[in-house]
């Protein structure tokens, strides 16, 4: 697995771990904050965006603020 793929995987795992009933949508910041010890901030941001292109994550927005979630929680 390339570094990129590995990071995307980590991101998805993060979402699987943190999504629970009543709390499924997260800010980019939440994820970056948790993973930034291991990875560079920009790389995490890019991985999250790449996930939305793959469809493994989805953007969720109120119009004014933007969050991410797993497709099944959309």
């Amino acid at each position, binding site marked *: 697995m390339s570094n990129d793929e590995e990071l995307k995987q980590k991101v998805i795992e993060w979402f699987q771990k943190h999504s629970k009933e009543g709390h499924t949508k997260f*800010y980019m910041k939440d994820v970056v904050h948790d993973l930034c010890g291991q990875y560079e901030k920009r790389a995490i941001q890019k991985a999250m965006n790449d996930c939305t292109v793959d469809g493994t994550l989805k*953007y*969720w*927005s*109120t119009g004014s603020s933007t969050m991410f979630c797993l497709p099944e929680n959309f």
Partner: protein
Amino acid sequence: MEDKTPMVDELEKGPWPSYVKELKRAAKKHDSVKDLIKVQERSFQRKMTQWKHGGIVGVKGYGGGVIGRYVQNPEEFPNVAAFHTMRVNHPSGWFYDTKALRTICDIWDKHGSGMTNFHGSTGDIILLGCTTEELQPTFDELSEHGFDLGGSGSDLRSPTACVGPGRCEWACFDTLGLIYDITKTYQMELHRPPYPYKTKIKASGCPNDCVAAIARSDFSLIGTWRDNLRIDQNAVKEYADKKFDIQRLVVAKCPTEAIELVKGKLELTHPEDCVRCMHCINLMPKAIRPGVDTGATILVGAKAPIIHGAVLSTVLIPFIKVQPPYTEIKQLWEKIMEWWDENGKTRERLAELIDRMGMPAFLKAIDVEPCPQMVNTPRANPYFFWG
């Protein structure tokens, strides 16, 4: 469902150009707008919005640029069941050639409702009313033709500039050039919401501030000059000859008594007192001009009332030269964004964060030296830190 829309129709009358007329024009081609008119009538009857909250859509890879919208009663108004808007970024200064405009119109008639806001109040072209399915095709076709989405959500919103050097003799820097450069440089930040909340950049070429940067951008650039304004005494004489009351209308209104009539001549008798408010220049554009050592003041923090009340931007950098490639400005902005991103709570704008952490902490974090120009007055309370 009643098809008559008497209340809406009422607004076809009257001298001011009617949006209802526009709706009806679009309704001829688009069933969605037929329903939209009925929805508007319903709102008038019920005195309430007929739209549901949010509902989220976007185009591939982008986290912003689309506002999802669904009607409350899709069974009654099926053609606006999903009626999203797309925010399309504008060329700096809102300059267009008709070819580009016609292209947008054609794409939008093909994929959407044919209704627009030209423009939205941030400055985007608002394509108003799109089904979920048509979002991606609309975007694809737009981007093929050189247009791209603007911001929405927790991202950098479409930066805007006053017309500046495009037409205005007072532009103290190239507002259009700067804003275009910034827009291009930060495409990532525009399209992929990385921040705690929205953030805005606007640039006005002089203190008249024709894009209202000081009122509505977290990072506001406003043109100014460091030397003295220039006066052409011949032109002054022309104004006087035309019975323009220089004393009453100009001199008496200078906020700092910097400019005076001395034996028929208009003189900047106290150049060090001029606060470059533009008033005298505004009133006598043929006779008075800004200086030649021009640049910008950078102010930060403006925003609308949510949550702690509206804020106007406040001085951060009294003077900076504004020249391509604008490195210093961009580095400053990036530093600010980093601090905000690091410390900001969700839905907390820059000004609110500064208020919460304190201006001194902000200055320290972004490595800017304090100076008296930043404040109207020093503090009155004795509560300061040395730690």
